[in-house]
């Protein structure tokens, strides 16, 4: 719980500015709410972007970082297109989500959190996404039994895709990729290090 000495102070706002992608924009929000009204998944947000920005100013660190709201972002960019103050809201939402995850505060079993990690791991393996494996790992993320269920549920879909040559069982053997996934890994590892180095400790 934040104490009065943190409420409506800049402490959390500063943390967001330092550690969150495009975080320095949060202070520019004027609470018009056009982002909240523009989000296609809006009704699924416990706290719409504009409210999250207000919570940041109010110093509600835990509430914000443990929220599942940011994970509702579909990256449709409606909010960015309409924001009268030009806040890159999509990126701020992504940034907050990533930061929450980094701190281990993001809600567990948040499906999109899980999926985005799968996606990333998947692409990092060979440098290109392997849709089949990604699909399967998605189905099996909640264990084998659930996985089979999911797979069965989507079996028809899979068969259709195979028929249309838009899914290839052979992908399981490897599939597409860059020539030297190792080099790519090195590059991204470096990028990761640089980024980690910049994170400031506010805890």
């Amino acid at each position, binding site marked *: 719980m934040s104490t009065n000495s943190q409420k409506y102070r800049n402490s959390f706002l500063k943390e967001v500015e330092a550690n969150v992608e495009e975080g320095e924009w949060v202070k520019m929000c004027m609470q018009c709410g056009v982002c909240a009204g523009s989000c296609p998944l809006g009704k699924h947000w416990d706290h719409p972007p504009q409210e999250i920005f207000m919570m940041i100013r109010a110093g509600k660190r835990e509430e914000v970082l443990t929220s599942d709201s940011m994970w509702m972002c579909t990256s449709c960019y*409606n909010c960015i297109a309409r924001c009268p103050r030009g806040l890159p809201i999509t990126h701020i939402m992504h940034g907050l989500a990533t930061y929450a995850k980094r701190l281990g505060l993001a809600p567990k079993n948040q499906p999109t959190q899980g999926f985005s990690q799968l996606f990333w791991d998947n692409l990092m393996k060979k440098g290109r996404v392997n849709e089949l494996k990604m699909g399967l790992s998605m189905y099996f993320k909640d264990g084998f039994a659930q996985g089979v269920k999911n797979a069965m549920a989507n079996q028809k879909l899979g068969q259709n895709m195979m028929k*249309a040559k838009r899914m290839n069982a052979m992908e399981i053997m490897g599939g597409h990729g860059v020539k030297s996934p190792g080099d790519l890994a090195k590059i991204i590892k470096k990028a990761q290090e640089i980024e980690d180095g910049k994170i400031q400790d506010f805890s």
Partner: protein
Amino acid sequence: MAKIELSFYPGCSSQTGASSSNYLVSAQTMCEELDITLNEIPDWNCCGASIGYGGGGELPRLTLSARNIALSEEHNAGQEIVATCAACWLSTREAKERLHEDEQMFKDANTALAEGGLRYKGEVGVRHMVEVLIEDIGFDAIKEKVKKPLEGLKIAGYVGCQTNRPFGIAGESFENPQYLDKIVESVGAESIPTFEKKVQCCGGALAFSEPEKSQEMIHGIIEAAYDNGADMIVTPCPLCQANVEIYQDQINETYGTKFDMPVVYYSTLMSVAFGRNAKDAALNGHIIKAKKLEEIANK
């Protein structure tokens, strides 16, 4: 028409055996007809899409795209990069702009790339195939190319999100872009300019992680097209295409509908209109067959 040569970034989903391999096929056919040469960026990697954010942070994601641009600048020097996939285009262009406005990011990205012996300059343009069609080719030129006008077809132009926002196509509005309708008309079909869901989000990657939420939106998109009397939907985005097409069975189950709405690419329409056969137009790549197109193609 002057020959156009571009550095091509196909993206993961368009690879053979991947979810939008039919997009690639039809796009290549279309380009042949329009005398556009696509030089694939050698050894390109995934752009990280938008959904990658949860795994990689900002810099790693930007670096992914920086690598592609660097490769293009190295191997396809002097050629603008063109992408057919909305996410690929968006990520790459976004990365370029971000690295341009933020000097530190620019340095950091290059420090990372140096690990793989690459250097990013970021001096090359990044465009979507649709921009090339509108700005370099033009609707009239497309009209001229038409051998088999798609008469009697009513097609809903579904633009979706990422081809439209935040960059969009020059001269088009975010809320009511017209270019797909113009393409539809250029190939002799009837457009639906009032299609109110033309920029509605389909859920994007959340179709995987949050199927119910996404399918609710997809349902709305198909329903609107249906209510507007559309024979099929056309889109410039592979994820839109997949999401709107492949879940129709599940949506029909959930909502008790009987949707059977083909969802094709602008390149599909053009390939057929330009007189190419069903195979070149990759009509076989559709789960819900675009029968009316097939008929025209097989004429």
